[in-house]
């Protein structure tokens, strides 16, 4: 699979799946065993990831992922992105604040047989919690 084809899948991952909730496309480009690893939790399969996307669209109005840059070789890809939205329902135990959030992150992807198999996500959760007014955090 070419690097260009991988970059197209990465674009679809953010714009069509995360932003537009295209679950048919998720079934097409994600391996059933797709794992989505955040530093503090790993979702172990494609269905769990699809639930996360749908759930986050309930918590965040106009949840939008913008692909800022992507890099791919013959086996792997990485993306630098921005996520934004308005906090309209409970998320992570935090009741709706109406606050807007906008954070950046980098995701490292591994493929298997042309499908996405693993995503290792790093994003600025600390900034997000500050944007929601979580007060237990040390000042930045």
């Amino acid at each position, binding site marked *: 699979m070419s690097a260009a084809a991988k970059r197209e899948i990465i674009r679809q991952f953010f714009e069509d799946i995360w932003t537009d909730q295209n679950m048919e496309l998720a079934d097409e480009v994600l391996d059933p065993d797709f794992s989505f690893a*955040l*530093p503090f939790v790993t979702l172990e399969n494609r269905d769990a990831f699809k639930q996360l996307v749908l759930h986050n669209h309930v918590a965040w109005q106009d949840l939008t992922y913008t692909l800022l840059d992507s890099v791919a070789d013959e086996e792997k890809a990485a993306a*630098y992105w921005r996520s934004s939205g308005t906090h309209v329902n409970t998320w992570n135990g935090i009741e709706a604040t109406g606050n807007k959030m906008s954070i950046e992150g980098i995701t*490292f992807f591994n493929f298997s047989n042309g499908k996405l198999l693993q995503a*290792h996500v*790093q*994003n600025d*959760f600390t900034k997000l*919690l500050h944007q929601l007014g979580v007060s237990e955090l040390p000042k930045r």
Partner: protein
Amino acid sequence: MSLTPQENNDLAIKFFETAWNTGEIIEDLIDPQAVDHSSVGGKEKADVGRESFKKIIGMFRAAMPDIKLDVQDEIFVDDKVVHRWVMTGTDTGGVMGMPPSNKNLTFSGTTIVRFKDGKIVERWANVDELGLLQQLGVAPPPPNGN
């Protein structure tokens, strides 16, 4: 002199391992006008120059003098290098202005750098700061993915 992606990666490994593991910043490998896009520590805007990187290295090495970088996966293509990494260290100096916890800390991150003529000219990084704060007991529990 434009280098191959493999050569860029070799330089990136040398630069980051030397910086994190010994504290030495190899100035020949970072452009004086390098742009740092990372938001580590709440930085709001891109910084230009070597100082911002020296400051981050200095801050973490003062907190954890035995800090060690372990690159777990990498991509190098065209002028970019991506490293997915884990760092470990003992908090004997105090992280982010807090008193030393003497805990062994582990945190992960991903860094992208762009090379030009054998020097780093741009850097992006995301670091699990929240995880670090949680290990120190000063942040609320992590999101559970829901």
